[in-house]
């Protein structure tokens, strides 16, 4: 697979030193149902990695295997070179922020946060100090003596975070922690979580189905589909150079152009351009923002592909709008343009061949 599973940004990685977390060929089936197939991934110190996928992709299962709540059917998980998957969850230096927070209702906020420290039998004053520090870090110091039932969802989420981080784990796992929050609070928390991670310096493994969220927060994104990794790369890389059709469509909007390559020329319906790719079928991803509307009177560069299209539909998105355009041969494309009041129905459009990124097919997996 032409995907990068090695960390692209690894500040502390010295050659010869094992990575913080190594997932090697992990597979998991529930009965006859395979949920994860042959997943291999490495996580570096201090990085923010997001495991992105639809529901059913296996992302939560993968997280639970790292945390220790599921055993992999085959494969290994290693932390700093040593087998992690042989230990029970309560012996791993890994902590989890659960999707519905899982705060203990019979304990106060303070007692919740200090739970792991009490279990480890640390001295009382140390516990008090670290708990206060953790609460201050998530800005919840005022609620120390409250009970979880009395605080809001967003506040509970911060406490869950504090409770995990106070134990100074090597790795923090976050299972869709923002999914229960409303949109504005969610955006706010995304920023806070990201800066928190930078501040604390611990590796975060974040699971979500929201691709926008993944792009905002991550150093790297691991896109999971039906139990296998489609691509692992930084947000910019994955956006501008998607490896597969699924990746191109899942992250952001795209147009998929299906065509034939013959003698160095790609032909897709009435569009054609030069490419240095071998003969045969081809699939290209062309982002809507890379199709430009041009004034027919001006000339075009030699190197662009031009064509005409009729606007079928206009969707207002605030600063931009998404136009559904149909070409003479029936090809339908999405075009993103700056919002404009009066648009002519008939447009002259162009794009650069470099923006038509070749992608692999994403086959159905049985």
């Amino acid at each position: 697979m032409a995907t990068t599973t090695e960390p692209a940004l690894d500040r502390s990685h010295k050659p010869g030193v094992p990575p913080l977390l190594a997932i090697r060929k992990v597979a998991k089936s529930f009965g006859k149902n395979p949920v994860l197939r042959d997943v291999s991934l490495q996580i570096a110190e201090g990085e923010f990695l997001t495991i992105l996928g639809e529901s059913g992709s296996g992302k939560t299962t993968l997280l639970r295997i790292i945390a220790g709540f599921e055993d992999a059917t085959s494969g290994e998980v290693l932390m700093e070179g040593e087998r992690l998957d042989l230990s029970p969850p309560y012996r791993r230096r890994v902590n989890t922020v659960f999707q519905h927070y899982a705060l203990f209702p019979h304990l106060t906020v303070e007692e919740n946060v200090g739970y792991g420290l009490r279990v480890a039998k640390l001295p009382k004053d140390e516990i008090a100090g670290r708990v206060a520090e953790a609460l201050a870090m998530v800005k919840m110091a005022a609620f120390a003596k409250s009970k979880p039932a009395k605080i809001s969802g967003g506040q509970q989420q911060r406490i869950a975070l504090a409770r995990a981080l106070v134990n100074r784990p090597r790795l923090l796992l976050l299972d869709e922690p923002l999914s229960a929050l409303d949109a504005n609070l969610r955006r706010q928390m995304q920023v806070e979580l990201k800066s928190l991670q930078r501040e604390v310096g611990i590796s975060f493994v974040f699971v979500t189905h929201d691709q926008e969220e993944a792009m905002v927060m991550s150093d790297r994104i691991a896109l999971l589909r039906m139990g296998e990794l489609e691509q692992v790369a930084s947000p910019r890389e994955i956006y501008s150079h998607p490896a597969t059709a699924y990746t191109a469509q899942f992250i952001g909007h795209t147009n998929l152009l299906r065509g034939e390559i013959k003698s160095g020329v790609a032909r897709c319906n009435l569009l054609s351009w030069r490419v240095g790719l071998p003969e045969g079928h081809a699939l290209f991803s062309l982002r809507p923002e890379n199709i430009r509307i041009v004034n027919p009177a001006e000339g075009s560069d030699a190197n662009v592909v031009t064509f005409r299209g009729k606007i079928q539909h206009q969707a207002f998105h605030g600063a931009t709008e998404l136009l559904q355009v149909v070409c003479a041969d029936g090809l339908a494309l999405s075009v993103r343009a700056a919002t404009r009041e009066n648009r002519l129905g008939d447009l002259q459009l162009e794009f650069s061949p470099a923006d038509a990124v070749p992608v692999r097919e994403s086959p159905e997996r049985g």
Partner: protein
Amino acid sequence: MFSRAYRAAVTLPPVLWVLLFLLVPYALLLCYSFWSVSPSQTIIHSWTLENYRELFRVNVYLQTLFRSMWIAARVMIFSLLLGYPLAYYLSFYAGARKDLLYQLVIIPLWVSYLVRAYAWKTILGSDGVLNTLLQYVHLTKHPLEFLLYSPFAVVLTLTHIYTPFAVLPIYAALEHIPRNLVEASQDLGASPLQTFWRVIFPLSIPGVLAGATFAFVLSLGDFLAPLLLGGPSGIMISNIVVSLFGAAYNWPLGAAISLCMLLLVVSLLFFSEQLEKKWSFR
């Protein structure tokens, strides 16, 4: 949304019935406890505290009451000891068989009390199944006398009857505990045993209290088991009440004792309810 006529129509009949057949009888009970019985076996309707004084003066009543409470306490403890692990197994380990096992717990609950008490009688007697079995395998030479017609038999039978009563509320409480709390506890470093004591058990306390209350209160007022299996040393307070309404014709005294039992039960329920509220974290 519901008209006054509607609300009156649904409220009046049951309230009237309950008034007539529950409130009035209990009120009568109260009155009788302050009356007395004449030597010619008629009720004298003059108000007196004599019955209550007799309760405290004559030893046998208080003794029997304390013996009944001690029996009830033992039944409560054993029911909890037997019932909690069973409920825990059902909730956390039974998996696919949970439903079936749950039915197996409630079936004895509803099979005739009399039948089950009688069954123990046939098992524990000197010619009973247990004794003849022990002699058959040569573990004993003579029948064990203490098995039947003793407080032991009463405690055993009542534990048998009321253990399912303890299991059900504990099971319900355990089922209510979100499983992610158990995972969170382990994630934070607590072993399964620590998780049980710090998280699971505290959250199951309302169920434990409910089960304990049922077992205690229902055992306290039981009259059938002691009558069938208790013998002279196993008499409980309800048996005294029954005899006062039967052969030892003294309704006022019986009413006084009943009233005391009623007050005791009501205060235990109230007390238990307060504790349950304190331990429920909703």
